[in-house]
């Protein structure tokens, strides 16, 4: 658009105040995909996470869910751009705060299917407290962590899941802190649904995300993805990955599997799939008023006060 045209457009545009009314539309021929062009690096597995999520939501819509009843939150980092590409409601929130934002969206309307997209820096660094407490509170939301094991939008510093020895501009001597194991941590903190996926496996990831959204309570999906620009040492580990059998596991068994891969760049196998799933009363079920709203499919605004 020429500058002159832009000026004309701006002049004709009503200011946002009183705001929050936007046109939204799908990219022609691609449901749930906005019209914005992707700005992720070409070949970044974030594209695949977007596609898995899009397909999971589409599949749920086919099963009878309303498109308008999906909402998302995103933190800030490479993962966060998914907000601009996935055409569902939501808040593009603050770095590290995607979980409380998502819990808030759920509290504000217990009938929404809420997805919290987050990065590894987002969840395990800046927002760690929120992660642990979400496992404990058990709100009925789905946390999807794009774990590329580096802060990539800030040009590649180490995150809490970076492997030992990872050299970056901020850690020139190499990372000397042991990485945390998010699967083990989530299980210990009481999460009622814990899964891990490989971003490149779109079909499997879609299936897991779908199951995670259907799970009533806090569902945590950790997605391992390559960073093809900054943390090359962790790339292409597909041959180490294997899928867990689709069956119920006790906490003890789940903890055992969670320790197979310790997030260091070692030769161990990397299990994928649902480690653990057990129903426990969610926030919706625990709180009388939320329970009432969810059961009657009503919103706060419908209540006579």
């Amino acid at each position, binding site marked *: 658009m020429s500058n002159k045209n832009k000026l004309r457009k701006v002049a004709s545009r009503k200011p946002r105040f009183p*705001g929050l009314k*936007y046109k939204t539309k799908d990219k022609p021929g691609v449901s749930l995909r*906005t019209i914005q062009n992707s700005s992720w690096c070409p070949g970044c597995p974030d594209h695949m996470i977007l596609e898995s999520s899009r397909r999971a939501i589409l599949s749920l819509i086919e099963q009878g869910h309303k498109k308008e009843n999906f909402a998302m939150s995103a933190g800030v980092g490479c993962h966060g751009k998914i907000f601009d590409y996935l055409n569902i409601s939501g*808040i593009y929130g603050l770095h590290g*705060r995607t*979980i*409380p934002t998502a819990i808030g969206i759920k509290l*504000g309307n217990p009938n929404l299917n809420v997805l919290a997209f987050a990065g590894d820096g987002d969840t395990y660094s800046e927002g760690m*407290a929120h992660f642990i407490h979400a496992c404990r509170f058990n709100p009925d939301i789905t946390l999807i962590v794009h774990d590329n094991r580096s802060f990539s939008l800030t040009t590649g510093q180490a995150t809490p899941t970076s492997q030992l020895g990872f050299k970056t501009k901020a850690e020139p001597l190499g990372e000397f802190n042991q990485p945390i194991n998010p699967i083990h941590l989530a299980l210990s903190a009481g999460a009622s649904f814990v899964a891990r996926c490989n971003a490149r496996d779109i079909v499997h990831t879609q299936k897991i995300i779908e199951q995670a959204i259907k799970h009533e309570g806090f569902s945590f999906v950790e997605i391992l993805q390559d960073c093809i620009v900054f943390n090359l040492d962790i790339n292409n580990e597909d041959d180490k990955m294997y899928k867990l059998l689709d069956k119920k596991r006790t906490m003890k068994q789940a903890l055992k599997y969670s320790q197979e891969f310790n997030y260091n760049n070692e030769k161990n196998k990397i299990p994928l799939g649902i480690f653990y799933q057990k129903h426990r009363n969610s926030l919706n079920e625990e709180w009388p008023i939320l329970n009432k709203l969810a059961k009657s499919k009503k919103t706060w605004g419908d209540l006579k006060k």
Partner: protein
Amino acid sequence: MRLNILIGGKAGQGINKVSTIVSKTLINQGYFTFNYRDYPSIIRGGHNFNVLSVSDKPISSHESKVDIIIAIDELTKQIHEIQLKKDGVIIDYKPFLNEGRNLNIALSGALASILGIPEKALLAEIKNNPKTNNAQSLQAAKVGYKSQSDKYNLKKLNNNLSIMSGSQAVAIGAINSKIDLYIAYPMTPATGVLHELAAKQIENKMMVFQPEGEIAAVNMGLGASFSGARTMVGTSGGGFDLMAEGLSLQGISEIPLTVYLASRVGPGTGLPTYNMQGDLDIALRSGHGEFPRVVASPGDPLESIEITNELMFLAEKFKTLSIILTDKHVAESEFSTSQKPKKPLKINITRSLPHKTIVKSSSYDQDDYGLTTEDAMYATINAEARLEKYEEIKKACNSLEMTKLHGKTNSKNLIIGWGSTKGAILDAIGGEDFKFLQVLYLKPMSKIIKQEMQKAKNIILVESNLTGQLGRLIREKTGISIKKRILKYDGRPFTSDELNKQLKKYV
């Protein structure tokens, strides 16, 4: 007629019970009361005291000199004897040691008796509370009552009064505004509202949620408001600092949010259970970037009810941030009043909500589709839209009571203050030659302030802080610098008798 009664003892000995029983009995007798609570951050032990001020006319402060001391321990006598007036009375705990846990009830009886309140009225009040409605408590009250005789002769008056703290009032204001969610992490002195609303949540079809911290609280608040709940979050200064980034997110995402900020003494942990008007600056400016907001500060419970409603209304109407700024002195002191609040403004949610359509709110600058843009044109128009919004907010606030004038309206001696100093100022000026301009709205600010200052000969600023934050704000907005300042920053609120002396020095 005015009496000040100091009730002192260790934390856990039931000082509040004495002042509650006696003040409730007094208002039933038609007397105006004001109860100041002074306590350190100690759960059991230490030294706490309340000053219960009583009058046949409206009051909203306590005085430094006291008429009666109720000493539940030795320390109270040692510390406070110096405040006792010449003809004052000390009621000692020793004769009532046999009453055990009902020592405080016995002392309430003794106090009621010396004030001249009928025994029946006292016993009725004790029976009113399920915790004290038992034979031992009633017996203790009778023993106490018998030990003294009528000295102050408080005859029944014909006033219809009720007692309320600022915290209770903010909760009522929120309920009047049909609040759906209150999200807060405990922090004195904001905790009062958390407790009040939590106790009332079921009957008022609302929910009170205590998350893992203030950062979570503000982000949850925005999330909940986004999806359609009328939401308020609450905290004190330290927690408000943690919320700052969330406030900034409000500024760009335009998701309505009301924040209750009850100040205490900073910096840092400061004096956590004491009072300071030290957080005006952060209420006005906290959060990076430039975005509109409303800040208002009530001076008593009645105003707390009204301002809470007004600010929740403005937040929703203008998709803006509004901050109810109060402090420990208003939040935790108990005021009596005969007045009723204004009819609450009705809050309608007319914006797009996620379950109806697709709504995208963002911490990034957004284009027409709600998607991220870094385009200079959009940056300009979005920034200017925020400015334009503030102009609209200013217009709307003009129809609200942004300032109040008290005292002699033709006086040339103008006192300017805000928030919790209101009570002491009103009682200090009494019928004397002063006019008091109370600033309720601090952002936006009323033009009346400049007009009143231009009319006055003598301008005196009264604030409970170190640097005169309202004074600085007024200088910024009007260009007028107030030279005569009465500032108090020891964590203790102004007492009306001392403030009266200080004001007179400036006239």
